[in-house]
């Protein structure tokens, strides 16, 4: 502010303005306070509480805060079920990320090709995002119910039968196989890909790939057309333009997508509950279902808390650097 401006205010004006400002600042703080307190209690306080419960012997309806150290963590990590859950989460996350990134990018490139009716296609690809995982689970669980194939198939097996593709029929969500099955001496569960997880990946990809497409689309629209045009003028083929310009410039989007989709897949719960309930056996069981089941059905409260903290740590490893990075770049802006 220049000197001329300041002199235009009478001293009393300045004093009044300052008083108003402090009063307003106080009101601003007061307005923010309920939310800050709510988050402090419901997020950080409750996490700390859960963390504390995970170190106790609480098992049963009545609280028992006898301190047992890391015993619950030892118990769950040694259990066949939780080891299976970790395997399943890793498998699910890898397949889910891969299918989403590829499909999302392909869809974005298709929609970005600026054909007529582009908006309709975009809306069709994105609409599953508006639907509950529970609805998705109900619909896809019937599609992936195998029936008595090959003689009496249902769902997708029936479709394959009609198309003459019987060879592709499979047990889908009832498939108990783990491929390639192997068991190192330290593991209590079979390692490999639980086949029943694949239909769940399909359903989850159906739901989320439109979102991935939307992220890539926003990224694509941010790449200046001149850049690609210049490369074309220099004689670059479309593939080279894609490989050398488009793809590298989409890298930040890919990173964001990996983090957002990754944390969703580590938390996956609703879809599993509706599609398979964690079965067959524990072939599609995941930590989210484990926590729910152990805490609220088996009443092993402390073990459930320990598993919940494990989930939180997995998510935090992915998310915290991302939030901090976003906050930093924002300040620089």
């Amino acid at each position: 502010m220049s000197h001329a401006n300041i002199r235009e205010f009478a001293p009393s004006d300045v004093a009044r303005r300052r008083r108003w400002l402090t009063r307003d600042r106080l009101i601003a703080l007061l307005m923010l306070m309920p939310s800050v307190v709510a988050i402090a209690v419901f997020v950080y306080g409750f996490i700390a509480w859960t963390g504390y419960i995970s170190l106790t012997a609480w098992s049963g309806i009545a609280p028992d805060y006898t301190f047992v150290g890391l015993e619950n963590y030892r118990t769950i990590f040694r259990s066949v079920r939780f080891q299976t859950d970790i395997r399943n989460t890793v498998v699910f996350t890898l397949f889910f990320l891969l299918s989403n990134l590829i499909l999302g990018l392909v869809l974005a490139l298709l929609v970005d090709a600026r054909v007529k009716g582009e908006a309709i296609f975009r809306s069709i690809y994105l609409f599953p995002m508006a639907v509950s995982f529970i609805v998705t689970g109900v619909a896809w669980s019937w599609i992936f119910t195998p029936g008595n194939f090959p003689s009496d198939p249902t769902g997708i097996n029936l479709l394959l039968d009609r198309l003459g593709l019987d060879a592709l029929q499979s047990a889908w969500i009832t498939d108990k196989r783990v491929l390639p099955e192997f068991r190192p001496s330290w593991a209590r569960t079979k390692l490999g890909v639980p086949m029943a997880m694949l239909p769940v990946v399909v359903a989850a990809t159906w739901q989320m790939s439109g979102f991935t497409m939307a992220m890539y689309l926003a990224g694509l629209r941010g790449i200046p057309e001149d850049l690609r045009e210049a490369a074309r003028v220099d004689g670059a083929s479309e593939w080279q333009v894609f490989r050398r310009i488009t793809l590298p410039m989409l890298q930040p989007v890919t990173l964001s997508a990996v983090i957002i989709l990754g944390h969703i897949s580590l938390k996956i719960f609703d879809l599993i509950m509706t599609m398979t309930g964690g079965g067959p056996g524990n072939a599609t069981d995941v930590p989210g279902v484990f926590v729910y089941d152990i805490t609220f059905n088996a009443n092993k409260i402390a073990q459930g808390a320990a598993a919940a903290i494990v989930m939180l740590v997995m998510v935090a490893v992915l998310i915290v650097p991302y939030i901090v990075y976003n906050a930093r770049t924002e300040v620089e802006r």
Partner: protein
Amino acid sequence: MSTTALRPVRRRPRIWLYAIMIVFAGFYLLPIFLLLITSFKSFEEVSLSRMWDLPRGLHFQSFTRAWEAMGSSFINSLQLVIPATIISCILGSLNGYVLAKWKFRGSDLIFTAILFGMFIPYQSVLIPLVRVLSGMGLYGSINGLILVHVVYGIPITTLIFRNYYASVPTELVEAGKIDGADFFGIYRHIMFPLSIPGFVVVAIWQFTSIWNEFLFGLIITSAPEKRPVTVALQNLSGSQFTQWNVQMAGALLVALPTLLVYIFLGRYFLRGLLAGSLKG
């Protein structure tokens, strides 16, 4: 300049592009197609071996049955989602306004700390949540669910509004101050009118995510008569006594409100989605 440089960019035949896009569209529409053809079949027509056949006419028996089983839950969800969405909007808007235009020492840190709440697995707060809600007499009630959705909605609503208000020029706020407007005056006359689209984005976001939410509903409402609609649908689909065409009709009923919002206000829905990835 060589002739190759002037050659127009060769594009692949459009027909192939359309063909690929239509195949993908088929994948996305397949489950909805199945829900529709099954729900409109009469009970006599429903058979797993004729699952993909079209219905011979429009029959509404499945919907009637589904509504009998889930109608009250549908009403519960409405009673939950409407107040929760409104409170979320107001709270998020005020937070966003303070964090964008009344910054103080540490306000960015507080904002970042609030954001973390958006990503946590809710499994990590469930046990304390149940105990505290019981202590408050809110466990098992729709009011309890409203409180929970409002609190855990604070991060995303604050984020969207803060980014929205950050794009409002600070000069406008300064001008308001010089004209003698106070905190609420500036909000009412400058920020609020400018942020109507922000309210639409946040309202749609909260409506959709609260309507579709499952875990809190499952844990916090134990009594069947208080259940939100997603929990009711999950129960219906888990029951061996319910015909699958009724489950399909139920799924359509649950999907309908958010799908309508998506069809009519899709643009705002997309903005909320992208804001959720922090890049607002």
